[in-house]
């Protein structure tokens, strides 16, 4: 059970994020929702990498021939997560800059009040 907690957290994060994106009317809250989904997916990747009782996948003080090679978690999902975080930052920055522009144009962040006739 205890090992399932991260997966429950993933599901919770993704669902809360989706809820925010679908039902919230404030643009900032939509952005927060998207970042929550992203955190959920990243946590999912990290959780996949973990094996019970494993250490971080860093080699130090061990030669290739030595016997006591530590039991490591998988490094590939870590690399994927890093890439995904970097992409996420770029998307977040872009979204927030668009929100700023929208606020300047319409003076509101409420989705329902956007899209008047004036260009």
């Amino acid at each position, binding site marked *: 059970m205890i090992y399932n907690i991260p997966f429950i957290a993933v599901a919770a994060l*993704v669902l809360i994020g*989706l809820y925010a*994106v679908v039902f919230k009317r404030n*643009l900032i809250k*939509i952005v927060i929702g*998207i970042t929550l*989904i*992203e955190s959920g*997916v990243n946590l*999912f*990747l990290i959780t*996949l990498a973990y094996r019970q009782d494993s250490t971080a996948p860093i080699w130090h003080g061990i030669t290739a021939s030595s016997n006591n090679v530590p039991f490591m978690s998988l490094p*590939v*999902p870590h690399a*994927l997560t890093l*890439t*995904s975080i970097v*992409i996420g930052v*770029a*998307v977040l920055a*872009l*979204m927030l800059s*668009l*929100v700023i*522009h*929208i606020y300047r*144009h*319409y003076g509101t962040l409420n989705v329902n009040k*956007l*899209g*008047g006739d*004036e*260009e």
Partner: protein
Amino acid sequence: MNIEQILDTLLRHSPALIVAIPLLGAFLTPLISKINDKVRNVFVILTILATNFFIFLLASDVFAGNIHTYVFGAKNLSIPVVRILFEVDGLSAFMAIIAGILSLAAVIYSWSFMKENTGLNKFYTLMLLMTAGMLGMMLTGDMFNFFVFLEITSIASCALIAFWTNKGKAVEAGFKYIAISAIGALFVLFAIALLYAQYDALNIAVLANNIQYTFLDKIALVILIAALAMKAGIVPMHMWLPDAYGRAPASVTLLLVGATQASLYGVFRVCFTLYGSQLNSTLRNISGTTITLNSLLGTIIVILAIVTILIGVMMALKQIDFKRMIAYAAVAEIGYMFLAVGAGLTTLGTAVSMNALKGGIFHIINDALDVGLLFLVAGAIYYATKQTSLNNMGGLARNMKYTTVFFLIGLLAVAGMPPMNGFASKILIYESVYQVNPVLSIVAILCSILLLAVFIKVFHSAFLGPEQPDLKDVKEVPKSMLIAMGLISCIIIFFGLFPELVVNNIVQPAANALASNTSYISQVMGVI
């Protein structure tokens, strides 16, 4: 080294170069533009031309029957999990040709169209980045790499959609697009994680070789198709598309058509290659009739496609904004490709299926060209008159001769009239889909006629009729825009006059790649 050896070396490295050249060019553009604007424009066009050269070099070899692989970071693919691999088969090369042609036309068109805007260094940087992202999506053989290029494409295209930040609607459309793409891409990543967790691999060929169609695979399949179809603009997930297409600068819209089709390519790659070995597996057995995965998946795609065509055409009929109208027509056109490919999927392995796949794939390039040309014409009208609403136009044929001719070509091509390319692919679609279910064919033909009606209306209200007093001094658009439109028109007419040539040489390899994934898999498994 003689010329053949050089060509051979270039060919071997071209999968990497096709992505690397526009990527490098993108970040050189701000530097080059320090010299002056003309040099920058020439540099960007040369970059795209070089990319196109490598695309055609690679495509000519791929269409001859070889699948190319390119391994990054090592000579051989010893650990398949870690290495990034590019794999180019008939379908990838076919899609890359589309992206190449579209980006070439887009940068030539931008020369005059965007001339009066500021911040063009960033504009061209983003355009090249978007091209690189699109090509990367099409050429990569690695799921995670696909996700990365998907994000590159969507970030660049979002910034380009919102390029006219002085217009509130454009920024709004940009936000809508980035929200949709970010969520879509995150779910793609989620599905990739599901696949990785089970098979310990990210390579598409390795995954396709090992795939078992477990419960988690089913979830991954649904998520992948839903997310990528959302990015491809399939009804009911098409809401972002008319906004994004309608508000972006015309040359960006042209590239966006390519980006949408890159997502479409993703759907096909997932259905036919990733899950290709499981397509014949029986899902359920109801009183003697077995339901296989391909028929279920195909039926879902066909239903979505029919809804897409109907909604696209219906909405196009009632628009008064020129670009939004074309955008809805573009939604309908995407439906045609899905219809044909879905019909091909339900009957996989038969002669009908092959024809349907050929029609669907041929229609991908035709749609890109036809809809692209119409968007360029709409952009030209906007450039000349500063109007987007059809209510404020009229009598433009008097002053804009060439644009009118290009519009007529685009109109006939989109509506599927001979001798344009749209006819060549649509007749293939009608024929093959009829054998799957006659109703599908009837709906498809009916909607084609409605499309013709939509654009005849535009032709009448914008180009014919009495001269509008405030449009008296409208001039023909500058040369670069005419060249871009002419380039696409020539290809449209060429494809329309010699469809056999195109189908046999370009479309057939791509259809073969869809119909069977064994050569795609064995190519990589051989490399390992």
